[in-house]
């Protein structure tokens, strides 16, 4: 007879877009992370299980999954914090196509980064002097507050607006756009404001704030999006976009 205190009942999503949850028994360990649990299943119970991870220390952002209904970094989530009554339900991230099991297709997420003009557009050449930037200037402080995003897509998976509106660029792409709008070295502000002011841009956000509630980096994409709404509105009223 198994000891319920030494075992976890783990339901894992198996299949692609269509599939089902399958349950596995995994030994409970001290300081065990959710990623440890998934890895145990793949190494000892079912080697066909697909999932994605890289650094295991919360730097790469590749191991995000839905854990007991919430998107989380599995490598930084201790089982003891989330396993209600010794049970875990682990699925792929929401709002992204499922490739297989716990691995999602991240292409729509990164394509929206590009649509939001998330790439830095230098305004000077390498032969010119670098732009001096005061760290305490309001624009740099606004950029710094949003800069630590590692593209894990947790905010994207948590966002109701993304779920309802497939055109919506999502919190991460808009947060990135906000950092660049506040970067005085960037030379594509007009183009970027136009991109984020179009249908599916920042104005589609309902400010539900799931992104800032669940961001593992404690960033606040809702505030970044509010900043973009203000900037684009003024730009529109002035006839700049």
């Amino acid at each position, binding site marked *: 007879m198994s000891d319920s205190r030494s075992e976890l009942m783990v339901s894992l999503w198996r299949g692609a877009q269509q599939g089902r949850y399958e349950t596995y028994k995994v030994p409970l360990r001290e300081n065990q992370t959710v990623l440890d649990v998934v890895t145990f299943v793949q190494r000892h119970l079912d080697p066909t299980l697909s999932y994605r991870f890289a650094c295991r220390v919360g730097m790469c952002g590749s191991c995000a999954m839905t854990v007991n209904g919430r998107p989380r970094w599995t490598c930084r989530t201790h089982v003891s914090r989330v396993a209600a009554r010794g049970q875990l339900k682990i699925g792929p991230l929401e709002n992204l196509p499922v490739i297989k099991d716990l691995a999602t297709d991240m292409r729509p997420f990164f394509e929206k980064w590009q649509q939001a003009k998330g790439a830095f557009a230098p305004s000077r050449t390498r032969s010119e002097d670098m732009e001096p930037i005061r760290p305490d200037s309001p624009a740099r402080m606004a950029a710094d507050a949003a800069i630590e995003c590692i593209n894990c897509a947790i905010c994207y998976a948590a966002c109701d607006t993304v779920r309802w509106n497939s055109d919506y660029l999502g919190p991460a792409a808009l947060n990135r756009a906000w950092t660049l709008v506040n970067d005085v070295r960037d030379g594509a502000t007009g183009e970027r404001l136009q991109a984020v002011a179009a249908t599916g841009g920042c104005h589609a956000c309902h400010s539900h704030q799931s992104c800032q509630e669940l961001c593992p980096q404690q960033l606040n994409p809702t505030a970044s999006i509010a900043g973009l709404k203000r900037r684009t*509105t003024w730009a529109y009223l002035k006839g700049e976009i």
Partner: protein
Amino acid sequence: MNVRLYVWQRLTAAIMVPLVLAHIVVIFYATRKGLSAADILARTRGSFAWASFYGAFVVAAAIHATIGVRNVLTEWSPLEDRGAGMLAGVFGVLLFLLGARAVVAVVLP
């Protein structure tokens, strides 16, 4: 939703804030004072001020609601932007006609 619709929705909301408050005050006044329909019509008929007040209210509400309904339709129904815009537009026109009819009924002498 794009910046143009966003600006129109916020603008009409800003117009409606004082109008809603004044409308509530009017309702309280009329009920507390026990004004009859005839008393109210005596005040509103031929009044340019009441026609402007409720006329602005109807226009702002019709625009505001149309944009909101369009949003709901694009997010919660299978309709694409164009279909949702047309359906919401029809709703907005209907709302405007109903509101305009009510304003005309109380302000025309």
